[in-house]
């Protein structure tokens, strides 16, 4: 008998922490799928290490969300016992790994945002989020440098790697707008100084991404139509499959530990 999902009282602060935790967990899980499959040993370690950083960030954020909610939830329940519609992550991070170029472009888009985002969050009026940010900022900066080098190598590499990197940019571009979207819950967090206004990060993000893409001899699409929904629990079909693997143990064997 499978374990039922928990309910979460999503006050603005709980929701805010949960959304960032979900981003980090889902992207971390995606990267962990490369473990043992990366194109070379060093990259296998790199992807696994980046995954570890992200899952670590997720743990701190879930723990904080549960503490603020004060309803007997914890990091494990939040990760393992919420259904797909309760997940609040960006659609970008649940995109399948695809080929190596798809994984790297997804990471470029995310890390180019995470880097200035966490740097800004170090000044949050919320002491716990500021502390999580102080650690995440260094990690994100390191991830960004690593992925930027790969994008340049792929784009400015062979015809094949160039074509695949360009295809990945074209495919994933429509999922980048959601990073900068703000709803009422977030607006209250921004007003109280808890959250960084993501709109202020749009131009630094664009500068970082454009410079890497230009050096990689690739181009950004002209289109500005953007896909959204993840923040409200409207996900692509891919997230359910991911969660079925991520949650399988706890759903099948409630409370299992070792």
């Amino acid at each position: 008998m499978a374990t039922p999902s928990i309910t979460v009282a999503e006050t603005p602060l709980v929701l805010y922490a949960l959304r960032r935790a979900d981003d980090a967990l889902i992207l971390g899980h995606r990267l962990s799928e490369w473990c043992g499959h990366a194109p070379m040993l060093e990259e296998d370690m790199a992807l696994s290490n980046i995954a570890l950083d992200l899952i670590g960030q997720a743990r701190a954020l879930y723990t904080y969300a549960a503490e603020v909610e004060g309803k007997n939830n914890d990091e494990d329940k939040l990760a393992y016992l919420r259904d797909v519609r309760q997940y609040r992550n960006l659609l970008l991070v649940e995109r399948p790994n695809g080929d190596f170029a798809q994984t790297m472009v997804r990471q470029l888009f995310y890390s180019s945002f995470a880097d200035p985002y966490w740097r800004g969050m170090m000044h949050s009026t919320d002491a716990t989020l500021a502390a999580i940010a102080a650690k995440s900022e260094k990690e994100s900066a390191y991830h960004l440098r690593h992925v930027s080098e790969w994008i340049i190598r792929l784009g400015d590499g062979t015809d094949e790697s160039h074509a695949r990197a360009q295809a990945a940019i074209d495919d994933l571009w429509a999922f980048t707008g959601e990073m900068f979207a703000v709803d009422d819950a977030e607006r209250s967090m921004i007003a109280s100084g808890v959250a960084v206004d993501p709109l202020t990060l749009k131009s630094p993000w664009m500068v970082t991404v454009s410079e890497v893409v230009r050096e990689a001899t690739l181009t950004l699409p002209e289109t500005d139509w953007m896909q959204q929904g993840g923040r409200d629990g409207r996900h692509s079909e891919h997230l359910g499959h991911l969660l079925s693997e991520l949650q399988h143990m706890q759903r099948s064997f409630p409370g299992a530990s070792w």
Partner: protein
Amino acid sequence: MVAVANGDHDLWQRAWDAAAAVTDPEIPVLTIADLGVLREVTLRGDGRIDVAVTPTYSGCPAMNMIAVNVALALECAGFPDATVRTVLSPAWTTDWMSDAGRRKLRDYGIAPPQPASSRRALFGVEQVNCPQCGSGDTELLSEFGSTSCKALWRCKTCREPFDYFKCH
């Protein structure tokens, strides 16, 4: 090093020493005191011990093991039911690693982090000396190593590969 003592100082010292001797499961030559992971040991009014540790990297899997080992070490030293909590602020940096810790790391074959963990240092523009032969003629092989705190380097003089404890 932050240390808060309440009441009996000798008793507190015994607890501190027990906790401080716990080693990092991934780098067993370093104690958590060397690393700067041990932040606070408090002797509570009821005689129980409360320990505060701070994580190194967000996802460092050694943290769970360290918490278990600290409680165990205190139990063995005569302090049952110690609590170990994690404090996030201020965030740990490699600057908190003691000089003794840096020496032990080098002797163990891991190049220690440079002091002052600036962004510049994080981005590897610094010079890393080979922990085997001391040569400064080294090169980065991989930004990510066997654990989240290390990068993989190679010495061009003695040709030995080595781990470098990244600045953080």
